[in-house]
């Protein structure tokens, strides 16, 4: 099986889904000849032409609002926002329309739309290129929020997202784009939305994250079992909304301990939702408080200081030890 990085895996998912379904169109800034600033749409315009791979004017609200109209009109647009730090002009179109047309029309007008964008830090970029604001989308009724953690996940989840009848916001961890390769089947496959993934089973403590930091918790799990013999369960949420509380609560009912890791500012981040649900559903099984390892409540610092901001394997390891020794 071919080993691909996440950029290649997403490009393949787009290519194969465009091949399979003529109603799929890709649009965004620089997605055509340039193949996207990360090359995720590389080769698409050569294959499917400018009528299905559309370089748009520089306007995010325009991209999403235009795509909403396309979707209502029977197409399945996949819109790229160049960086998640630039999606905010489109926030209104997402919250006020993409997420609401089905509800507003009792199902008569629907928006099968995917908005994909790189997110997160660790790429030494300029301001606004390292944001991790998934929580402000996960709180919006009517939107699904999906975040792949590696190339295999990215292909399967994106294919499922494109086929989903409702709007999906798809966050791609920029730091992972070229950092790792995994085996990715050549044929198409889907990974169901709304289901978390138990990456590694364990009995002592549950580590939960999504996107780029699934790698962080996997490394932490390995180190903890090697150094301390802890049996760590690792969960990749995959989808923040709808949240798969069943998989998470089942795990914590077993382990009685959990640490949730996110890159976003800690206050009001999605880790808080995970903790709150465990509070309500599993308090009798908890042997220690559910802890959050997260970014600070600050603007992500520019490159010179960004490493301090990122949740590190060390921080996770220490938090797990504290939880085990609670």
């Amino acid at each position, binding site marked *: 099986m071919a080993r691909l990085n996440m950029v290649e895996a997403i490009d393949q998912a787009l290519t194969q889904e465009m091949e399979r379904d003529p109603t799929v169109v890709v649009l965004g800034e620089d997605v055509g000849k340039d193949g996207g600033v990360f090359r995720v749409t590389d080769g698409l315009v050569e294959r499917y032409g400018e009528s299905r791979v559309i370089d748009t004017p520089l306007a995010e609200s*325009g991209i999403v609002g235009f795509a909403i109209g396309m979707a209502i009109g029977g197409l399945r647009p996949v819109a790229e926002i160049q960086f998640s730090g630039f999606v905010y002009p489109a926030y209104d179109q997402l919250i*006020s329309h993409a997420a609401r047309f089905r509800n507003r029309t009792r199902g008569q007008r629907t928006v099968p739309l995917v908005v994909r964008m790189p997110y997160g830090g660790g790429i030494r970029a300029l301001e606004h290129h390292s944001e991790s604001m998934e929580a402000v989308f996960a709180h919006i009724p009517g939107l699904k929020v999906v975040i792949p953690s590696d190339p295999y996940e990215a292909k399967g989840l994106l294919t499922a997202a494109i086929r989903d009848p409702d709007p999906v916001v798809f966050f791609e961890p920029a730091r992972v784009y070229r950092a790792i390769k995994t085996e990715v089947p050549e044929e198409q496959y889907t990974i169901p939305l709304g289901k978390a993934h138990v990456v590694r089973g364990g009995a002592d403590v549950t580590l939960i994250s999504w996107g780029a930091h699934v790698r962080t918790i996997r490394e932490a799990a390995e180190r903890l079992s090697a150094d301390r013999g802890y049996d760590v369960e690792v969960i990749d949420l995959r989808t923040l909304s709808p949240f798969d509380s069943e998989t998470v609560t089942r795990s914590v009912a077993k382990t009685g301990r959990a640490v949730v890791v996110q890159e976003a500012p800690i206050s009001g981040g999605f880790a808080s939702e995970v903790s709150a649900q465990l509070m309500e559903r599993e308090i009798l099984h908890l042997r220690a408080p559910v802890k959050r390892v997260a970014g600070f409540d600050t603007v992500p610092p520019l490159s010179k200081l960004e490493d301090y901001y990122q949740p590190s394997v060390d921080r996770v390891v220490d938090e797990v030890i504290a939880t085990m020794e609670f």
Partner: protein
Amino acid sequence: MPVTTLVTYSVDRIEVMDTAGEVDAALMPDLSPEKIRALYDLMVLTRRFDERMLKLQRQGRMGTFARVAGQEGAHVGAAFALRDDDWMVPSFREAGAFLARGMDMMRFLQYWAGDERGNVFPEGVRMLPASIPVGTHMLHAVGLGWAMRHRGEQAAVLTVFGEGATSEGDFSEAMNFAAVFQAPVVFLCQNNQWAISVPYHKQTQACSVAQKAVAYGMPGVQVDGNDVFAVYGTVREALDRARGGGGPSLVEAHTYRVTDHTTADDARRYRDEAEVVTWRERDPIARLTAYMKTQGHLDEAAEQAAWAKADATVAEAVTAFEALDPPGPEEIFAHVFAEITPPLAEQRARLLARLQEGS
């Protein structure tokens, strides 16, 4: 190396029928007497509907409603130029266009009374529901038009909005996308000169909305919005051009909001009644009536019959609307997603269980 002129533009205003109902034969769109009568009936129906909505709201039987009386010439005239396979993407002040497109009046009442089920159109009616966030919906029209052309359909999209909407960034993005992609869209601005309490001159320094098209390399024209023939003819021409691949256009229907902004507003707080009076004299229905009478297409009896018929139609719809069952609580969860998600299923179950106990 002098000063050279790159480009020159001029913005026109089109008037076909004056306040006495006299028309300019050269500009008169070809419309059979039957068609004109149909147009008249729709405008009359719209007026009666609007008046009844006000009464219902005052009686506490209806929610907040955006009045349309006095703007029938603009939005009914424009919607009348649409073909069945065209789409319409409205904002919230186009009641007459909903009726013109064949929306069920009972459902329309149901929507304004606060029931989402009232947003369901009869099968085959190509229209989107009212869009409340000002300026946001024109982008949907552009995407819809692009999708139709992508599929090779020879149809167009009409999107309607107020002059206040032209201040929103989304208006500019929609105009630009439409022009860049040559989408088959007609942008109709009902410039009624007020955005709640904000008058036109505080909304923009441009002496016309029509000239905003220049920024996007798009044709733009102003018409007398209380002159239904000017609106109909101009919009039809723009729709034909769009269907034929000629790209989008902006049409400014220059009219006036003679009513309060909505049933929740009191315009006397911020504007002078005198201005309103002069515009009442330019009433679009009175004008059309005068034309039809001089043409011998309408007499006193027929006129009264038309208004009576409109009253009856509205009364019937109101009765049917008030006989509708209220929505059940499960409706809250029914259409968030195509398939209800586990969290929503759990929340619905909890609510229904509570209500069980309660009863």
